[in-house]
């Protein structure tokens, strides 16, 4: 018994230690650079530890074929290069999943424990501009930066003329198809060139391509469709614009329940009901569909330039069986739809001036270092200067550039955009399961969505 008690007591002490040990994880890591600091004579800046979050982007520092290439490779490399120049700054890099990004950030926001730096798609973060959790970066953007990066890209990073994201790369979203399956289904005339983004009309897709895939191939679903959660909903948003719905009216409120919007949703529901998509889309995620496409169970799916790069790398590495994957536009009438995710660095409002200043300095370093910016080729560079340097390495570049005329800005960087995303998928589910007609589903989306937008504006630090 005595032993038991001694043990309990010892463990309590351990708890105490662990509690301190782990809660002081920050102080422990800040102590290290402090020691460093002493050695690098002359520098008397206080030690700073920064935390950086990113969602999976590309693998490797500059290329996915590097040994040990992972999602954090580039960011760790950038951090260590920065630390080499600024020994007092330590940067911890953490990869978080896109599915849980909002939960993590909301929890951090509520508890004043935001990370210092976030690398993420600009549109997913607009709610945080409005909640005051992201600081503006206009003071670190030079005129050269402004000139080197296109107007459309900047637009994605700004609200009311203030810049919240330092754009680093962008990823156009398109469809992708398995050309081997197309050949097998006798659809040769719809196959584009290897590095082309082919355009099909909505009618061709619905009446020729998908039925042929359905009828001629076994064990393959013609097209991916997903509505279980908000992930990759941008494709769903694009489908809704297929027949020309403006989506947002001039005041920034939703108006997608117009005739064109309803027609588009009806089109999707028809595809679904005719067995031209995967079954059970209402409980499938984009990840499920992507996995099925990669495992040759879906013929036409969605992709962006990063997913495409990863797919090709996985094929090259033998992780999945190789097949002939090619790109297509999201069909539209009269013209196809395209969009791009601009991603970049954000400095979070941690309310600690020293850390914010250090974060901004780091962001400026990564986004302007002539060597580091080359990593943006893994998706697509936002800088014209980088594009010029790497154009020979990027076979798809010409096609993406040619496609730029079809790009629309899908989020308007509105307040409450992440809440708005969560209003859409339940309505899509209702439409797919037949619980609501497309008109009812979109009416309901517009009504609830506009309430979110209104509430978002009332709670935005930008509008108030």
């Amino acid at each position, binding site marked *: *018994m005595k032993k038991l008690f001694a043990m309990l007591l010892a463990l309590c002490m351990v708890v105490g230690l662990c509690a301190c040990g782990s809660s002081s994880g920050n102080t422990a890591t800040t102590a290290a650079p402090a020691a460093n600091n002493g050695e690098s004579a002359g520098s008397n800046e206080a030690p700073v530890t920064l935390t950086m979050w990113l969602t999976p982007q590309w693998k490797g520092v500059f290329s996915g074929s590097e040994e040990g290439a992972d999602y954090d490779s580039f960011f760790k490399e950038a951090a260590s290069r920065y630390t080499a120049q600024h020994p007092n700054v330590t940067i911890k890099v953490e990869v978080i999943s896109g599915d849980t990004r909002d939960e993590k950030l909301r929890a951090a926001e509520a508890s004043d424990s935001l990370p210092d730096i976030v690398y993420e798609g600009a549109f997913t973060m607009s709610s945080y501009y409005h909640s005051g959790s992201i600081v503006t970066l206009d003071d670190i953007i030079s005129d050269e930066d402004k000139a080197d990066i296109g107007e459309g890209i900047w637009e994605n990073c700004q609200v009311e003329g203030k810049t919240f994201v330092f754009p680093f790369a962008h990823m156009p979203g398109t469809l992708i198809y398995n050309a081997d399956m197309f050949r097998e289904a006798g659809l040769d005339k719809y196959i584009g060139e290897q590095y082309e983004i082919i355009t099909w009309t909505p009618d061709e897709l619905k009446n020729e391509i998908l039925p042929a895939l359905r009828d001629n191939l076994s064990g393959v679903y013609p097209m991916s469709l997903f509505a279980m959660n908000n992930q990759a909903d941008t494709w769903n948003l694009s489908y809704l614009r297929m027949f020309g719905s403006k989506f947002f009216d001039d005041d920034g409120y939703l108006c997608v329940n117009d005739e064109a919007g309803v027609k588009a949703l009806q089109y999707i529901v028809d595809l679904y009901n005719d067995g031209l998509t995967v079954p059970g889309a209402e409980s499938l995620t984009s990840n499920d569909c992507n996995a099925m496409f990669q495992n*040759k169970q879906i013929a036409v799916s969605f992709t962006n330039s990063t997913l495409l790069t990863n797919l090709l790398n996985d094929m090259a590495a033998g992780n*999945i069986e190789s097949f002939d994957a090619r790109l297509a536009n999201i069909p539209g009438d009269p013209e196809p739809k395209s969009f791009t995710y601009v991603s970049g660095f954000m400095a979070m409002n941690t309310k600690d001036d020293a850390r914010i200043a250090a974060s901004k300095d780091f962001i400026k370093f990564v986004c302007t270092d002539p060597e580091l910016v080359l990593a943006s080729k893994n998706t697509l560079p936002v800088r014209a200067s980088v594009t010029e340097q790497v154009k020979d390495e990027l076979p798809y570049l010409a096609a993406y550039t040619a496609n730029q005329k079809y790009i629309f800005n899908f989020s308007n960087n509105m307040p409450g955009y992440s809440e708005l995303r969560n209003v859409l998928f339940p309505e899509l589910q209702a439409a797919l399961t037949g619980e609501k007609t497309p008109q009812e589903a979109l009416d309901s989306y517009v009504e609830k969505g506009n309430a979110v937008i209104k509430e978002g504006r009332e709670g935005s630090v930008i509008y108030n």
Partner: protein
Amino acid sequence: MKKSNLGNRLKRADKLDLVVNILVFLMAVVNLFPFYYLLTNSVKNSAAIFKMPPDWWPKTFQYKNYVDLFKGQPAFRWALNSFVVALITTLLVVLCASLAAYGCSKLHFTGRGVVYAIFIGALMIPKEIFIVPLFRIITKFNLVDTYAGMILPNVASTFGVFLLKGFFDTVPDSIRESGKLDGAGEFTVFRKLVMPIVKPGIGALFILNFVNIWNDYLWQMLVARSKNMMTLMVGTASIMQEISPNYGYKMAGAAVASVPMLIIFICFQRYFTSGITMGAVKE
């Protein structure tokens, strides 16, 4: 617990009994199916997993999924985190609950009834209801992403007090009094005389609490921020949500997550079966 000989005495196997037992047996076997499915798929390559109808027995065994899992994810670290969190929480619970249960059972102090009533009342309130205020407390104390943050709120559970009080009640007062006559202090009496008697109760509480914390998910998911602080359950679920075309890898994650508890269950089976019942079933 007494072994009943009912087996012999009620052996008038009427037909209904037989039919029901066949059904029960079938259900028991079917219950094992998900685990079979999990384990066999975890050694398939991704193309084989997607095959329908499936290969009931994997055509090729490849352990790449497991290798990738331990290479790509800090799975050992997750297991260690789970172990540390579950063990320390449980030890703290045992310590606090045994003291409090002893107090409520054997000591006479003003307000004892009220204190015990409050403890019992709180038994039925899951802490998940209060995740918002709890999370604010944890952040106020700067405990996000720490073991302490995962551990401390769980120590507040009063189930242990309830369970152990029943055991302390069965200890005759004469033992305590004889100790007192020898001049021992209350704590000595508790530690030296009474605790040894309630050992089975401590064992039961230990194992129950350990399993509960090991399998806890929501709270640990909220507190764990960095990949290295995740517990096994949180880490496994995060693999599930990852963008990866390889389902075998996810299956391997789930398999790894279930193994440690299976081992513990096999080793301590009798504590599980006795422990669970002691709290409620008092004749």
